[in-house]
């Protein structure tokens, strides 16, 4: 009768990154390429236009200063969501996430107002190639901002109920950081 010696359990290394964070990173990378394609096409078409014809002379001037103000609101919302990660342990995440949602709503609300004003001035998706690009790029970003705000609201509710896992919180912050950091690039290319 032999002696049975139990083998030591194999050590399993803790995951180096949460699955939610990794999945969000892949999603964000795909979205970065989408917007890089949009902005590249915008630049190329603008570069091909004869001097003085881009943006087309008939198109209304884009509200650079007012959109700059909305940009500041969006950047501040990014700061608020970033701080929510630092304050998660102290239980202050909900307030900061809420502030991020409010500032994000200011940005999206202003964009909706800006779209309505521009449409009233005859600047539409079909009025010119410039209009098509403007509504496609800015509208796509606005949809991402709306989706990001919905996710922030969900995260704030989950944090209030103490159900928000570190992985989900990290994924939410990555998504909102993408929305915030992408906007200055769009603003610089499309508005300036």
């Amino acid at each position, binding site marked *: 009768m032999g002696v049975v010696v139990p083998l030591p359990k194999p050590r399993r290394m803790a995951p*180096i*990154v949460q699955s939610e964070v990794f999945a969000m*990173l892949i999603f964000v990378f795909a979205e*970065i390429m989408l917007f890089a394609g949009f902005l590249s096409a915008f*630049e*190329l078409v*603008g570069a*091909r236009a004869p001097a003085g014809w881009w943006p087309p002379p008939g198109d209304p001037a884009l509200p650079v200063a007012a959109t700059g103000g909305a940009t500041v609101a969006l950047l501040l919302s990014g700061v608020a969501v970033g701080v929510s990660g630092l304050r998660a342990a102290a239980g202050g995440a909900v307030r900061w996430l809420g502030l991020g949602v409010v500032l994000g709503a200011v940005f999206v609300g202003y964009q909706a107002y800006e779209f309505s004003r521009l449409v009233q001035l005859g600047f539409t998706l079909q009025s010119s190639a410039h209009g098509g690009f403007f509504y496609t790029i800015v509208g796509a970003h606005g949809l991402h901002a709306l989706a990001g705000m919905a996710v922030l609201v969900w995260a704030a509710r989950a944090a209030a109920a103490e159900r928000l896992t570190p992985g989900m919180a990290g994924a939410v912050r990555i998504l909102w950081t993408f929305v915030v950091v992408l906007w200055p690039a769009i603003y610089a290319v499309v508005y300036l």
Partner: protein
Amino acid sequence: MRCAAGFGLALVLIRPDVALACSTCMDPKEGNQTLLWVTIVLSLLPLGMMAAIGGFFWTRLRAAAAAEALPLDTP
């Protein structure tokens, strides 16, 4: 139909310049550098993102390996 396709293919092979149908294609003689820069950015962006995530994983892996190597009674 096949005749027309053959004619079109022959035309493209003999005179490729007539197939310049892409709205974003540019003549390098125009002296416009936009296409060059856009090509560089779009080529390097995915590589840069892959390098960034590779670096991120490498850093986390090294930190995790260093933590595993510590003796158990280390505070």
